[in-house]
C-alpha cells in the first residue's frame, strides 16, 4: 500500500521563546534519555469534525538530574525558536489504479 503524506500544517507556534538559551542558535538534537510525551486525554484517537480534542504533553528524563526544563513565558516575544511546535501530516488513501 502506498501512503502519501501531505504536510498540512507545520509550525503551529504555541508559545513564546527562550532567553539566552538557544537564542539565534539551532537547538541540538536531544539524547534519547529525555522524552517529550504527547497524548490525548483518555488515549482517544477518534474524533468528530468539530469535536474538542484534548491533548496533553509531558517531559520525562530517564537520567535524573541531567536535564532542566526552562520556562521563558512572555520574555522573548518575536524570538526565533518556538517553545513547542506541532506538526501534522495526513495519510491519504491510495488512488485507485487505472488499467
Amino acid at each position: 500500500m502506498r501512503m502519501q503524506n501531505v504536510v498540512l500544517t507545520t509550525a503551529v507556534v504555541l508559545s513564546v521563546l527562550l532567553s539566552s538559551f538557544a537564542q539565534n542558535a539551532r537547538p541540538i538534537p536531544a539524547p534519547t534519555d529525555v522524552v517529550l510525551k504527547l497524548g490525548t486525554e483518555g488515549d482517544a484517537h477518534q474524533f468528530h469534525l468539530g469535536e474538542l480534542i484534548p491533548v496533553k504533553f509531558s517531559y520525562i528524563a530517564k537520567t535524573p538530574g541531567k536535564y532542566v526544563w526552562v520556562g521563558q513565558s512572555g520574555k522573548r516575544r518575536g524570538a526565533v525558536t518556538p517553545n513547542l511546535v506541532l506538526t501534522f501530516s495526513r495519510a491519504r488513501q491510495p488512488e485507485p489504479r487505472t488499467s
Partner: protein
Amino acid sequence: MLNAPCGGIGGGLGSGCGDCDAEYPLTETALSFGVVPLNTHVTFRTPGTYTCEASSAVITTASRDEKIRPALLVNSNPVSLTIVNDPGWAHSAALAYAYADAYEKLCRGDEVAEHHFLQCSDVARRITYLDTADSLAVEVKFFDGRNHGWENGFWDAIQL
C-alpha cells in the same frame, strides 16, 4: 506526575502562567502541563487520519550559572488522530442545545461562581468548535460583550 504551574500550551485553559519562567529539573516523574484543546491551534476541516507530533527546545543540560545554555531539540512520539465526518453528530441541534443548556445554567448572569469558570470555558469552547449553524445561533444568543472571567471565543466565532 508533577504538574507545572503553567496553563499548558500558550497558557491555555484559563489558568495562569505566572511561574512559567521557572526551571524544573527533569526526572522519571513526568513533568506535565495539563490538558489543552488541540482545536485552539488547529482546525480539521477534512475527515481523515492525521499524525500529530510535537517538538520543543526548552530543555538544557546547562546550569543557570553557565553563560551559554544550549537548547536541546526534543521530538515527541507521533499521535494518530482519526477525524470522522458525521453530520448527524455535528449538526445535531440537540448537541448544540445541550451545551447551550449547560452554559445557560452555569455561565450566565451577573454572579457566576468562580469555581465554574473552567467549566464555562470548556462548554464555550465545545460550542465554538462545533462550527455549525446551530452553534452559531447559540453563540449569538449568549454573546453579551462582557468578560465574565473566562474566554468564551463567541465574538471571534461570530465574526468569521
